[in-house]
């Protein structure tokens, strides 16, 4: 049969499975460092602010391609600065023939945005073709900003609700702290380096939430399983065991995800580079938070020890009674 054609060989089990890294011993250090990182990120976002893209700040973004030869950015800058459109940012974008122009939001409502776009189009159409135009007026940009933040908050809430429903409240608290950490620290790095923060960054943050909680759930699941298996084991020891047992999976999945993201980052084109960067950052931060925040927090909160079926039934019965 066909199956005979498939070569039979074992994979390389690169991971030393009897390895027991003492994650829990440094839980205070890890959580402390994470809290400090969160505080710094928050402070950065408050003081330096986020470098909002057109989606959130309003204004225009125009990508042009020179009709012949490389684009002369200096000449273009001089020309556009003469149009009286406030601060005009021009940068080379991808190949040397392409430039990206950013206009700040023009004062006076919706119509001046289109007027500004028209001025730039008229000034450049002889030498450039337009590859991309994005104009976002003040009404839409403030709505998008709102939607973006609500989406992230709702994403965290939905996840926490699910974790609470499937596990115990201590797990949900661990998850919410870990997820908030991921979002805050990623935003903090974006603020520190003033990377552009737009709708696609929000999409990336939501994806990071998904990835990070995926990691957290895998570890939590193992913790729950071990709680059933080792009824008398010290909690910190049990948490440490669970993290170590799932470590090979955590690393392999992480490496695969990072490999794909790097390929997208390098080859995926200029337009989604920002998104991919946020994702790469997030996968690393998300993996860290599952191991160093979500699980260790359980060590502080403690957790229900009796996970036997009888106990579970008892809880369920109590719950239905309470409902009735």
């Amino acid at each position, binding site marked *: 049969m066909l199956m005979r054609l498939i070569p039979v060989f074992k994979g390389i089990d690169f991971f030393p499975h009897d390895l027991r890294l003492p994650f829990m011993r440094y839980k205070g250090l890890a959580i402390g460092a994470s809290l400090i990182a969160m505080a710094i990120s928050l402070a950065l976002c408050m003081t330096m602010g986020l470098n909002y893209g057109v989606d959130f700040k309003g204004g225009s973004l125009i990508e042009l391609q020179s009709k012949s030869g490389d684009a002369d950015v200096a000449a273009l800058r001089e020309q556009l600065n003469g149009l009286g459109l406030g601060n005009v940012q021009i940068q080379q974008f991808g190949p040397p023939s392409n430039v990206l122009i950013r206009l700040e939001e023009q004062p006076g409502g919706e119509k001046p945005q289109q007027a500004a776009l028209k001025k730039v189009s008229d000034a450049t159409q002889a030498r450039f073709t337009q590859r991309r*135009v994005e104009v976002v007026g003040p009404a839409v940009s403030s709505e998008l900003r709102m939607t973006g933040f609500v989406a992230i908050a709702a994403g965290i809430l939905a*996840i926490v609700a*699910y974790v609470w429903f499937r596990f115990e409240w201590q797990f949900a608290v661990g998850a919410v702290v870990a997820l908030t950490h991921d979002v805050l620290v990623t935003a903090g790095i974006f603020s520190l380096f003033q990377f552009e923060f737009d709708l696609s960054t929000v999409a990336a943050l939501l994806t990071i939430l998904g990835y990070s909680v*995926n990691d957290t759930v895998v570890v939590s699941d193992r913790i729950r399983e071990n709680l059933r298996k080792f009824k008398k084991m010290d909690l910190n020891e049990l948490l440490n065991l669970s993290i170590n047992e799932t470590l090979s999976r955590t690393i392999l999945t992480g490496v695969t995800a990072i490999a794909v993201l790097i390929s*997208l980052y390098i080859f995926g084109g200029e337009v989604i580079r920002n998104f991919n960067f946020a994702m790469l950052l997030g996968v690393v931060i998300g993996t860290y938070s599952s191991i160093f925040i979500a699980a260790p927090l359980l060590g502080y909160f403690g957790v229900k020890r009796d996970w036997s079926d009888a106990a579970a039934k008892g809880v369920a019965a109590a719950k239905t009674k309470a409902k009735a």
Partner: protein
Amino acid sequence: MLHFTRLKIVVILLTCLAGFLVALPNFFSKETVASWPSFMPKQQLRLGLDLQGGAHLLLEMDQEEIKKDWMNNLRDESRKILRTAKIGVTGIGAQGTQLVIKLAKPEDRDEALKELRKIRQPVGNVMLGGGSYDVDVNEGPDAGTIIVKVTDAGLKQRISGAAASSIETVNRRVNNLGTSESTIVRQGTDRILIQFPGLKDTKELKQLIGETAKLTFHEVHPSLSPEDAKLTAIPPGYKIYPGDKGEGGEYLLRETPIVQGADLADAQPGFDSRTNEPVINFRFNQVGARRFANFTKDNVGRPFAIVLDDKVLSAPVIREPILGGSGQISGSFTVESTNRLAVQLRSGSLPAKLTIVEERTVGPSLGADSIADGERAGIIGGIAVICLTVLAYGTFGIFACLGLVVHLILTLALMTLIGSTLTLPGIAGLVLGVAMAVDANVLIYERIREELRVGKTPVAAIDAGFQRAFVTIADSQLTTLACALIMFWLGAGPIRGFAVTLTIGIMTSIFASVTVVRLLIWYWLKAQPKGRITTVPV
């Protein structure tokens, strides 16, 4: 548990086959697919505007204008009703969304209330609404005053009606632009989204929808000039209109038009036979023609004004009654602007001005580049995943990769089936879906290894691996699904496209990476010589 019943195998294989067939057209060009025999599926995945190029415009109606128009209508109507009922009025003033009517004799108030309440229109579901109207007519605070107030429900209905008719008008205007299919849909209460695939230049489109194109014909005040009217008082029912050219030229016109653009039967661009300048030739419908004929009969020797969007284009003197119902509009037109105006007039006027609040246009070259980049990155990323998986899990790694292929095909097939649109962020969602699918296999295989380490037999270890890992997979996929659904409900544009592919990816990954891979492993086990399975190639 590893065992599959014959029925189950047939269902799994049929699902894979169906998915393959549905996804197949996406790998070929439109022309190739069109030449296939009729029993083959032909639907292809729609590409988003960011991938195929095109224009996306979000327009907002001017609500203030709609309100103002309505208030003017209400005032005219109230005046007419009170006049017919022979109730004296000393003044009607509009304040925001209410009219204050002062009656000449306070004792007329009850009678006036009764008459004015005839203009109310019921709003919403009459059966359930419980007597809700678009305007409320009540006594004012002072004796002899009546307040006509627009209700919230009424305003909402007005705006929604205006949006609906705007969409129709925009649709008719845009259809003149040419070949490709555009979609025009309402967003929220007062916004209209136009998506126009393949459109390279939005200038023409913006000009077409940028004007309300409200054409009206007005009576010019017979004796008073606008300058004199400003010095003394503007007679009731009249209003000063600016000329089209901007400088100076003002006209004192009766506010209620003689004939409106809605009464036009046709409008075509043309040239004046004497001066050869571009003009618009128009023809009224029956109602319009009769009204215009009556007016011109009575007013020979006097001027009338042709007004477009509240600006006077021209005010010719009527030399003889115009009975045929057709005529010519001249102004400072160019050939281009007459072409455009003719389209706008034929399509009807917009109830209110539309403002562009968001524009996203992607040229075809960028779209093509994005597809090429996405494909290249996808292939390289895919190879990386395959190498890693096979390296880490050997033979079972190959099965996992086969599962991945099924996963991708099924995701494509589902997206094609539900007619969703693939966007650039959508491709990213596809990638995350792949990562989730790989993760499922990693979880299973790591578990199998663990079970082997504690000394289980190969078959038992495989069985336990699938069973134990499944709980974790379901939990982790469901939480991600919850996140994706939130993105879908709340998200705008790019977030939504991402959420759709991610959701579909999660759904197919459980089938492809768990069920299909398990089936492959089961086949592999069966193919081994009986009782000879000593090691598991994982």
